[in-house]
């Protein structure tokens, strides 16, 4: 599956989408869900929580393993996706549609530190070896 070119990524396998209103939507990548396998539990951060960049703020659990999800940038949690909490398998079905939470970044410039699709692709390929 191709890595969407309009998104930005982290080394810890989160995807981010910059929205027109300045907020950032966050999920985990297709590659991450493929490694974890069938998802059975999702825990999202509380709305209103202030996150530091790189902070553990959500959890995804597959049948196999639990994995932390990290804040891609610092900011405030302004929304969470109740649909993936109710139906974690949506992450397996379409990882880039199954967003987990939205952040209002403390500093919009932080987004420039995220990986472009090509850099993330290279990371995934390097991990395969």
């Amino acid at each position, binding site marked *: 599956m191709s890595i969407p070119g309009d998104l930005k990524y982290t080394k810890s396998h989160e995807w981010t989408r910059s929205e027109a209103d300045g907020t950032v939507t966050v999920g985990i990548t297709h590659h991450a869900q493929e490694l974890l396998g069938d998802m*059975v539990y999702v825990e999202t951060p509380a709305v209103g929580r202030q996150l530091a960049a790189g902070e553990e703020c959500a959890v995804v*659990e597959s*049948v*196999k393993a639990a994995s932390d999800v990290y804040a891609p940038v610092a900011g405030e949690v302004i929304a969470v996706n109740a649909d993936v909490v109710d139906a974690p398998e949506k992450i397996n079905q379409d990882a880039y549609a199954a967003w987990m939470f939205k952040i209002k970044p403390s500093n919009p410039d932080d987004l420039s530190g995220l990986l472009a699709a090509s850099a993330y692709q290279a990371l995934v390929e390097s991990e395969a070896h």
Partner: protein
Amino acid sequence: MLKQTPLNQTHRDMGARMVDFGGWDMPVNYGSQIEEHHQVRRAAGMFDVCHMLVVDVTGSGIREFLQTLLANNVDKLKEPGKALYSCMLNPAGGVIDDLIVYFMREDWFRIVVNAGTADKDVAWMEQERAAHAPQLTIRPRRDLAMIAVQGPQAREKVWQAIPAARAATESLKPFQAAEFDQYFIGRTGYTGEDGFEIMLPVADVADLWKTLNTLGVAPIGLGARDTLRLEAGMNLYGQDMDEDVNPLEAGLAWTVELTSPRDFIGKPALLAKPVKMQMLGLVLLDKGVLRGHQKVATPHGAGEITSGSFSPTLNQSIAFASLPLGVAVGDVVQVEIRDKLLNAKVVKLPFARNGKSLINI
């Protein structure tokens, strides 16, 4: 360098995700492991268990040797072909491994041991043989491959794939095996379903695997193998017991035969040790997933989960827990998951058998 089974390339060709399992390059899943789990409960699936080791013991006086070597009593094996599940203990009463022993003839018993412990098992058996039964021969059989075919349709599929197997194995009862042509087939498994474990020459295994697949038997990875055995209430060596665990505290008392006067390795140590813990099942009542090593709080003291996962049959998280004596089936205990205490109900094992949940909460 990881060890490979004779089916390694076949797994890759079938799209398996491969993982390092105790030094072996093994398939963890081919697609959805939950679907693989259901396939075994509802129809038939097959497992590569070539990493496990077949050990043949031959010579005269095997029965006496095994009565000392094993915690279960091979005297229960009267009919040729009968199998017995047993632990092999160290002198301190800890579990060196759990295994299945088949009685074929008075001068031939076959033992199947776990992959990760195979080398130390053979070394231990060899040491005991040299000291107490030098007339016996202990022969590891890496020339044999092994696959398990499990599920309500498993036996029928095996009979279609190996026509001669029908006559040879149709009358086998559970935990009984037969040998014919190049095959050794036991009505055993690690899923809680009916089925066979088939041993055959390494050169023939890939063809049998492919034939079974064309008959609709799905390949099943280690991921589903774990959730199937967990639902079936079957211990996993290295997680639920090891050399530091008392089998009487790990749900294995039924396999340790203490009533006969025979002496076996580990028996004096077991009799001298007080039993303080018990192995019971947990079903998580709150949302989350139970995992090994999570702490359990009970009114009788602390316990710990030894194996936990998500049960596809119950659609809930389940676990085995080592709990203090005094905790009873029906109690609600608290499991520490990250920064929360979640409620779990204590249940009797197993959770599921023959396609059905045995839990009613």
